[in-house]
């Protein structure tokens, strides 16, 4: 009997697959506060939590897990998320960084998937580019409240996009556009707090978690590596967007297959010539004649130096 027994339909090895996963969550506001809670309940084992902000009073309308006491303590959102995970799964592996994600990007490289809960279009674009460079699937969530004409009527809408290497990107799908980036840049510092509420975030976050689960422990025979779900809270609908269907079979030219990795990488900088390093590497070699020669060389060098 395990605490995950009721989700065994996700596959015979699903507990282990989810336990082995490391998920990066960038931005731990309204959207990702739902996501981190659900991932903890699912039994996801590893988290890299990144947000530079502390909780404020105006976050309390939507930040799941946040309390009035957290506001009074000006608690970092990363700590609230960490507390949420550990309250469900004390064995979870958690790295958390109260910083802008670009400052700690290296810690996100080993993530199996990254979920973005970032508001700004430029942030979505940059985070997706990072993910493409390291062949990491990226799930983007976005929510907006639009005034309808001059009346006191509003449209609450949003989208969830799964962007995997080799599939249409946020630019291909019209989520990131030059106009949107220009408008955003023009409003920089003047935008104020965007309207946000808890229930659309919950729907978008649940959709994002569903996309993650079908990617790693699919419960049906047709998992997808690319998705665009559009949410209309006024109509109460969540539908697969035509934008994705229109891109079917069209290659993404924004992220060439060759544009991966660290262009400055130099393996020689990872090794100094200390015997300890060589020993560690040699000990890990298996079935390699070159490895045996190196181990013999290290042994010989140690013998000679001990004389």
């Amino acid at each position, binding site marked *: 009997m395990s605490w995950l027994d009721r989700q065994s339909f996700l596959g015979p090895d699903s507990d282990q*697959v989810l336990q*082995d996963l490391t998920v990066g969550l960038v931005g731990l506001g309204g959207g990702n506060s739902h996501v981190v809670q659900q991932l903890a309940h699912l039994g996801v084992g590893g988290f890299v939590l990144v947000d530079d902000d502390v909780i404020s009073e105006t976050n309390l309308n939507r930040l799941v897990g946040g309390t009035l006491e957290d506001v009074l303590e000006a608690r970092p959102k990363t700590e609230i998320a960490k507390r949420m995970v550990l309250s469900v799964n004390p064995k979870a592996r958690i790295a958390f960084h109260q910083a802008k994600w670009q400052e700690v990007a*290296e*810690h*996100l*490289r*080993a993530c*199996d*998937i990254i979920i973005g809960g970032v508001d700004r279009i430029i942030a979505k674009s940059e985070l997706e580019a990072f993910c493409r460079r*390291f*062949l990491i*699937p990226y799930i983007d969530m976005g929510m907006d409240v639009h005034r309808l004409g001059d009346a006191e009527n509003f449209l609450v809408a949003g989208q969830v996009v799964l962007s*995997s*290497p*080799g599939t249409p990107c946020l630019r291909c799908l019209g989520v990131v556009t030059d106009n949107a980036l220009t408008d955003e840049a023009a409003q920089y510092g003047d935008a104020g707090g965007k309207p946000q509420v808890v229930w659309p975030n919950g729907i978008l976050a649940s959709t994002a978690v569903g996309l993650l689960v*079908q*990617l*790693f*422990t*699919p419960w049906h025979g047709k*998992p*997808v*590596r690319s998705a665009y779900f559009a949410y209309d809270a006024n109509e109460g609908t969540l539908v697969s967007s035509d934008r994705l269907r229109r891109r079917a079979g069209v290659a993404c030219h924004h992220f060439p*297959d*060759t544009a*991966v*990795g*660290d*262009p400055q*990488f*130099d*393996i*020689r900088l*990872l*090794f100094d010539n200390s015997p300890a390093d*060589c020993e*560690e*590497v*040699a000990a*890990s*070699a*298996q*079935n*390699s*004649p*070159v*490895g045996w*020669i*190196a*181990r013999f060389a290290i042994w010989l060098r140690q013998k000679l130096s001990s004389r």
Partner: protein
Amino acid sequence: MNVCLKICGDLLDAVRADLHRPHSFAHERVGFLLAAAASDGQGGIMLLVRGYQTVADDDYEWHPSVGAQIGSNAMRKAAQASYRPPSAILHVHTHGGRGRPGFSRVDLDSAASFVPGFAETAPRMPHGLLVLSNDSVHGLLWAGPDRPAFPINSFKRISAPIRADWSDK
């Protein structure tokens, strides 16, 4: 040191299809994966496959003891492809079947001969040797011609579903 090798599923399928093509006299085909590299932020290395270099039929040579081998022309083409952008070269072939494959003595001897050449062309990158089965993979990596090999201990097939063992199911 942890080494993780990631490849997109479509490319891996194409590699397997290429390696399974019959050749007039070579029992096993080989190819070369070209990979970018990066630190993984935890003291290890990530290799990110960016392309595949097939070996042309004419670049196989008859060899009296092992039956067939690839000639210097194939090595030259692989080294050329790895030059810009600098790429790790992973010599790859398949033993077919299922389960974790292993290297033969011939595989390891050939690595000892080609790794120094590749290291000369792209000294900033590690180079290595992979062997596939139909549902798994095994690999070794060299950080330089005078350094011992170490195993590639994590493989990820980026597709749907994402698999950690390079299987297609």
